[in-house]
């Protein structure tokens, strides 16, 4: 019953990628999207022990800011609920940045070095010790590995004829990726307007069944590859668990 799956990358970076999946059902595509947002665990600071905070902000506000710093989370190294300790000690004048966090584990470090935590004036000091915990986006958005994840149908463009002479060429806007003459073309390459690509032609746009173009961007805690695979596996694992439970 399951169709042949096919994945093709249109754009590929470490933190940002666009790829086409063929043969996937709409429900499964949405399941993967939702799993990327809510079910793939990442490390994030959850508990802070304040040694000294003479800054202008309350401990709780500093705690929230620390929680929102994305931390690199290597795949398969940590399980949910595991913790890693980090420390921060900065004295003013100057700004405490996420890059000032010192991790007790070489595998875990701030994914972004330049997130300002607080501006410290002369004589102010922030010294803390924090526990980062592995948890899911369902629990708190700070644990969300995917920050911008979505998909849309792949659209096939068909030239069906010529426009009549002197006919007004209204813009025909498409987004995402189109399939034209057997090739995948990002709509940005022709200004998202089909009349630029097919001047004077009459075209039809059709959704390609079961073909979805995913746009995935992560917060840096893991690569796009890791995030997608972890999301897909989390659905597979649940199906596994259900099949085993039903057999009993």
């Amino acid at each position, binding site marked *: 019953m*399951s169709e042949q*799956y096919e994945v093709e990358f249109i754009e590929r970076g470490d933190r940002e990628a666009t*790829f086409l999946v063929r043969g996937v059902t709409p429900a499964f595509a949405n399941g993967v999207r939702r799993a990327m947002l809510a079910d793939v665990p990442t490390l994030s600071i959850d508990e802070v022990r304040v040694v000294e905070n003479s800054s202008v902000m309350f401990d709780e506000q500093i705690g929230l800011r620390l929680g929102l710093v994305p931390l690199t989370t290597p795949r398969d190294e940590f399980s949910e609920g595991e913790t890693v300790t980090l420390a921060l000690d900065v004295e003013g004048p100057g700004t405490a940045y996420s890059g000032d966090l010192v991790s007790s584990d070489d595998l875990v470090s701030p994914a972004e070095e330049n997130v300002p935590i607080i501006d410290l004036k002369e004589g102010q000091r922030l010294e803390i010790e924090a526990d980062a915990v592995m948890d899911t986006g369902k629990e708190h958005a700070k644990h969300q590995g995917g920050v911008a994840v979505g998909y849309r149908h792949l659209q096939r463009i068909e030239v069906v004829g010529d426009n009549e002479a002197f006919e007004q060429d209204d813009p025909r806007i498409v987004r995402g990726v189109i399939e034209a003459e057997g090739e995948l073309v990002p709509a940005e390459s022709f200004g998202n307007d089909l009349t630029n690509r097919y001047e004077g032609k009459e075209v039809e746009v059709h959704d390609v069944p079961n073909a979805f173009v995913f746009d995935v961007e992560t917060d840096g805690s893991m690569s796009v590859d890791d995030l997608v695979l972890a999301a897909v596996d989390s659905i597979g694992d649940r*199906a596994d668990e259900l099949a085993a439970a*039903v057999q009993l």
Partner: protein
Amino acid sequence: MDLRVITNERTELEIEIAGEDHTFMNVLKSALLETDGVVAATYDMNPEQSGGQTEPILSIKTEEGTAPLDALEVAADEVQEQSDAFHSAFEAAA
């Protein structure tokens, strides 16, 4: 994932799948609808604020001769296969 059977008849099944949400239930439902012998499949889920039944309840109706629990097992295997196929296709392209 805790299962609790609410009704289990020859061609009808209602089962609570605790701990799951739309992410998995919708995938499972769509697989069930594609499974041979299944006449109807749906799930019901209420928001946390509703104060009542908040865990999803899966309902399956099958044709005579197909046990709904068997259909559920087939569908679960199908979801698993889909996930494996997606995984290997993605790795092949990566």
